[in-house]
C-alpha cells in the first residue's frame, strides 16, 4: 500500500492524524482554514499558520468504487471505496479517505451499496497504518 509522501507543509497533518487527531491548517492572522496545506494564506498572504482541531464530523460529498487494473496491493482489495468527506466546520475542505465498518477495518470492509452522498460520517484512524479513516454515524 502507498504511504503518504509528505512535504514540509503537509507533515503536521499526518503527525496529528497518527495521534488520532483531525487538524487542518489555518491562517493564524485572518483565521481562514486552507487545504491542502501551503506556505502562506491565499486570503491575507500571511505566513503565520496554526493547526486547528476539528470535531471530526462530516458528510459524504462523493465516492467511487475502483476496480482493476490497479496497483497490486489495491487490486487485492478491490472493489473498495474511496470517499470524499465534506467537513462540518469547513465545507470547502473535503478530505479524501475510506469509509470502513469499524476503526482499523480494511478499505473493503463496508458494502459499497450502503454508501450514500450526504450520509453523516465521523473521523477515526487506523492505528496500524496511521491513516485517517471514516465510519458512518448511523451504521
Amino acid at each position: 500500500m502507498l504511504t503518504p509522501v509528505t512535504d514540509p507543509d503537509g507533515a503536521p497533518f499526518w503527525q496529528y492524524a497518527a495521534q488520532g487527531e483531525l487538524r487542518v491548517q489555518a491562517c493564524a492572522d485572518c483565521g481562514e482554514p486552507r487545504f491542502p496545506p501551503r506556505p502562506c494564506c491565499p486570503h491575507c498572504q500571511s505566513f503565520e499558520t496554526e493547526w486547528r482541531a476539528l470535531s471530526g464530523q462530516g458528510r459524504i460529498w462523493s465516492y467511487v468504487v475502483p476496480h482493476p487494473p490497479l496497483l497490486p496491493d489495491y487490486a487485492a482489495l478491490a472493489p473498495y471505496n474511496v470517499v470524499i468527506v465534506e467537513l462540518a466546520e469547513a465545507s470547502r475542505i473535503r478530505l479524501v479517505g475510506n469509509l470502513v465498518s469499524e476503526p482499523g477495518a480494511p478499505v473493503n470492509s463496508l458494502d459499497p451499496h450502503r454508501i450514500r452522498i450526504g450520509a453523516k460520517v465521523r473521523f477515526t484512524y487506523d492505528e496500524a497504518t496511521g491513516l485517517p479513516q471514516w465510519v458512518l454515524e448511523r451504521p
Partner: protein
Amino acid sequence: MTFKDATAIVGIGQTPFAKHLPEDERTLACRAVLAALDDAGIAPGEVDALASYTMEETDEVELAKAVGLGDLTFFSKVGYGGGGSCATVAHLAAAIASGQATVGVAWRSRKRGSGPRPWKNTDAQLPTPAQWTRPYGLLRPVDEIAMLARRYMHEYGATRDHLFNVALACRNRANQNPSAIMYDRPLTREMYMTSRWISEPLCLFDNCLETDGALACVIVSRERARDCRHTPAYVHSAAQGLPAQHHGMVNYWTDDPLTGPAWTAARHLWKHADLTPQDVDVAQIYDAFTPLIPLSLEGYGFCGRGEGGAFTEGGALEIGGRLPLNTGGGGLSEAYVHGFNLINEGVKQLRGTSTAQVPGAATCLVTAGEGVPTSALLLRS
C-alpha cells in the same frame, strides 16, 4: 498587434494509430512533423518555432536536428498533460502574431498504448496533492474524474445513458474513420451497460483508448497562409485556463469543484471572439473520460449549469445534431494522443476533408482536458 485570425494552421500530419507501433517515440515525432510540413508545402529549414507538452519525451534539440529544422527563435512547452494540447498552438500563434517567429510546429508523440501507465509509477511521487489521495486508493485519473462524475450525477440528475450518448457519438464517428482504432468495432447500448466497471460510476467505455501514435501541425501568419496548399484554419481565438484556487484534477477543495478550468478558458475565448457558442458548427472536445463532455458543454457555454447531460439527448452530438462532436472519433474511439488528434480533426472539418464531414463547417471549437489546467482554440475557415 491583434491575435484574432492573425495566424492559421496550414499543415497537419499524423502517424498510424495502434495499441502498439514498433518505432520509438522520437521516430514517430519526426514522421508526424515531416508529414505536417509536407502537407503545408513548407520545407523543414523554414521552421523557426516549436511547441509541445511538458510530458513530451522528444525534446526540441532532438527533433530539430533529426528533421533538419532551421534556426529556432521560439520554443515552449505546456504542462498539465492533456490540458496543454490547444495551448501548444496558442503559444505558436502568439509568437508568430507578435513577430517572434514565422513558421511554428506543434507536436505530440506518445506510446501510451504499449508504454507505461503514468499512475503506476510509485517512485516519482505525482504532484503534491498525491499525498492526500493516493494512499486511500484514489490512484488513477479515472478515479479522480469518477469522483466528480458521481457528484455531478447526484446534483444534476445526469445518468449513465447521458455518458453512453457521448461514447456512442465518438464511436459512430470512428466507425467512419479508417484511421481510427475503433473503425471496425461498433458500440451498442447493451455493450456499454454490461461492460466491466473501471471506477464506479464509470465503466470501460467511459475511458479513452491507450494508443501509440504521433501528430503535428504547422502554424504561419495569415499572409503566408494564403500561399499554402490547403484552406487555412484561422486561429480566431485562443485561451488557457487555470481558475483561482484550482487544484488540478483533484479539484475537491474549492467552493464548487464542478466548475473547472473550462469556465475560465471559455470566458477569455468568447470575450475575444466575434462568435458565440451558437455559431459553432462542430466541436472537438477533450474526451479522456465521458463526463468531461457534459462538463465542457456547460463550461464553454453550449448549455446552462447542470444541463450538460440532457444536452446529449436526441442525437445532439451526432452528425446533423445540435453540435456534432469529435468527428474523427476522439480520444474515446479514434486515438488517445493527449488530445492532439482533436486539433487536426478540427482542421480537417474546416478544409471539408473529414471522414465524417459536417456540411459547410466554417467554425470549430477545439478544447483540451477539462479538470486539469486547460486550453482551447476557436478555429474558422
